[in-house]
C-alpha cells in the first residue's frame, strides 16, 4: 500500500470519527431540543447562544464525576462493557459510502473508509455484536435491574435482527450486490428502493428502532420499571459511553436507512453535475437524508409510548418476520418473472 493511500485512508478515518462523534454529541442536544419543541418548551438554552455548548457541558460533567465500580461487580467486564458498546457503534460507519469519488490533488478519493464487497453483512455483524456491550455491562454490574435490562436488550435485539436481515435480503435481491456502494449506485437519481419496497422500509425502520434501543422499544432501559436498565450501576464517562453509543448508532442506522432505501448520496437531477460538485452535493444529500431520519427517530420517541415486553415479542416474531418473509418471497417471484424464468 502506498504512503499516499495510507494517509488518505487515515484522514478519512479521522474525519469520519470526528464527524460521527460530533453528530452524536449534537444529537443529544438536538434530542432535548426536539423534545422541548414537541412539548411546547424551550429546551436547553443556557450554555452558549441557544444552548449550543450544552454537549460540552454535559461531557465535562460526565468526565468530572466520580468513576465508580460497585464492590461486587466483575471489574474488567464492567469496564469492557461500555467500550464494546462504543466500539461496535463506531465501526458500523466505516462501510457507509458518503458520496461519489472526490478529485483531490490529482487523486481520486473514495468517500468511504472501506468498500468491502460484503458491506451490508458487515453492518449486520456489528449490529449483532453490539448486544455484547449491553449484556456484559448489565451482567457485570451484579445488579438485578441491570441484568433484567441486559436480558431484555439482548432478546429484543436478536428477535428484531431476523426481520431486519430479511428486509436486507430483499434489498440485496433488488440490487444484486452486498456492497453498499453498489446498492447505492443501483438507486441512481430518484430510483430509490423505498418506492419499490415500502413494506420492507417500514419493517426495517421499526427494526432499527428496536436495534438502537430507542422508544417505543427502549425496554432495556425503561426507567419506570428498571430504574435505568443495563446502565443502572454506571456513572461518569462509562455511563456517558453507553449513552453516546446509543446516539452514534442512531446516526449510523439513519445513514444505513438512507443508503438502503433512500438512495444514499443520490438525488434527483444529479446527472447535471459531475466531478467534485457532484461529490459535494452527494455529501449534502446524504447528510440531509440522515439528519431527517435522526429527526424522525426523535419524533417517534417523543410521540409513542413504550411497548409492553410481550407486545414487543409478539410484534417481532408474529408480525414483522412473517410479513417480511412474504415480502421477500413476492420480491423474489417478481424478480424471477422479470428475468423471464416463467416463459
Amino acid at each position: 500500500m502506498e504512503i499516499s493511500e495510507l494517509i488518505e485512508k487515515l484522514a478519512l478515518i479521522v474525519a469520519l470519527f470526528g464527524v460521527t462523534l460530533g453528530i452524536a454529541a449534537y444529537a443529544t442536544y438536538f434530542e432535548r431540543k426536539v423534545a422541548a419543541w414537541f412539548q411546547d418548551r424551550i429546551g436547553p438554552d443556557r450554555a452558549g447562544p441557544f444552548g449550543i455548548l450544552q454537549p460540552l457541558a454535559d461531557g465535562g460533567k460526565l468526565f468530572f464525576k466520580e468513576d465508580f465500580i460497585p464492590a461486587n461487580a466483575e471489574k474488567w467486564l464492567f469496564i469492557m462493557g461500555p467500550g464494546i458498546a462504543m466500539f461496535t457503534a463506531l465501526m458500523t460507519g466505516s462501510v457507509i459510502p458518503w458520496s461519489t469519488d472526490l478529485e483531490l490533488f490529482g487523486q481520486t478519493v473514495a468517500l468511504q473508509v472501506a468498500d468491502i464487497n460484503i458491506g451490508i453483512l458487515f453492518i449486520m455483524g456489528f449490529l449483532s455484536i453490539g448486544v455484547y456491550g449491553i449484556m456484559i455491562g448489565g451482567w457485570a454490574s451484579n445488579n438485578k435491574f441491570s441484568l433484567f435490562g441486559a436480558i431484555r436488550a439482548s432478546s429484543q435485539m436478536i428477535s428484531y435482527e431476523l426481520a431486519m436481515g430479511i428486509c436486507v435480503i430483499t434489498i440485496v435481491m433488488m440490487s444484486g450486490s452486498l456492497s453498499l456502494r453498489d446498492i447505492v449506485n443501483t438507486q441512481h437519481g430518484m430510483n430509490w428502493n423505498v418506492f419499490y419496497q415500502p413494506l420492507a422500509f417500514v419493517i426495517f425502520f421499526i427494526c432499527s428502532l428496536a436495534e438502537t434501543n430507542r422508544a417505543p422499544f427502549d425496554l432495556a432501559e425503561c426507567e419506570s420499571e428498571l430504574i435505568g436498565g443495563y446502565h443502572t450501576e454506571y456513572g461518569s464517562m462509562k455511563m456517558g459511553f453507553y449513552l453516546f453509543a446509543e446516539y452514534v448508532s442512531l446516526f449510523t442506522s439513519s445513514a444505513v436507512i438512507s443508503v438502503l432505501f433512500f438512495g444514499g448520496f443520490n438525488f434527483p437531477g444529479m446527472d447535471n453535475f459531475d466531478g467534485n460538485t457532484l461529490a459535494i452535493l452527494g455529501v449534502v444529500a446524504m447528510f440531509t437524508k440522515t439528519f431527517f431520519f435522526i429527526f424522525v427517530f426523535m419524533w417517534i420517541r417523543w410521540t409513542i409510548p413504550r411497548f409492553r415486553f410481550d407486545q414487543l415479542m409478539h410484534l417481532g416474531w408474529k408480525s414483522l418476520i412473517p410479513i417480511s418473509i412474504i415480502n421477500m418471497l413476492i420480491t423474489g417471484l417478481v424478480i424471477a418473472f422479470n428475468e423471464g424464468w416463467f416463459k
Partner: protein
Amino acid sequence: MSLETITTILGGLTIGAALMVVISRHPVRSVLYLVLTFFLISSNYILMNAQFLAVVNIIVYAGAIMVLFLFVLMLLNLDKDSEPKTHVLVKIASVVAGGILFTVLIAALKDGIALGEAAAPSAQNNEGLVQNLGQLLFSKYVLPFEVSSVLFIASMVGAVLLAKREKQVID
C-alpha cells in the same frame, strides 16, 4: 511483516483463546473467550480471503448463538457452593477420555497437514467472495446445502413442538 507471521500470530492467539475457554473457572468468562475465539477464527478466514464466511461466522455464531448461550448462563445460579462435587474416579476417567480424544485428533490432523498444504487456499483465490461462493453453493455443493437446510427445518419444527406445550387447565 509477512503474511506468514501474521498467520502464525493469529493462529497462536486463536489457540490461546480457545484454551482459555476450557481453563476459565467462570462459565460466563468461558463463553466470552469463546466469542473471542470466533472473532479470531473470523480473522483467519479473512486472511484466506473468505470475507463472506468470516462475516457470517460473526453474525451467526458470535452474534446469535453465543448471545443465547450467555443469556442462559446469566440466568443460572453460578455460586461455587452449588456446584456438584465430582468424584476423583470421574475426574481420572474424564482426563483419560479427553487424552484419547486429543490423541485421535492429533493423529487425524497429522495426515491433514500434508493434505492441507497441497490444497491450502492461497490469499489470491476468490472462492470466499460472495458471488463465487454462491455459484459453488448452488452448483457443486447444492445437495449438501439443501440437506443441511432440511435438517435445520426439522430441528426448528422440533424446537417449536417442544416449546409449545399443551395448554394447562387450571381447576
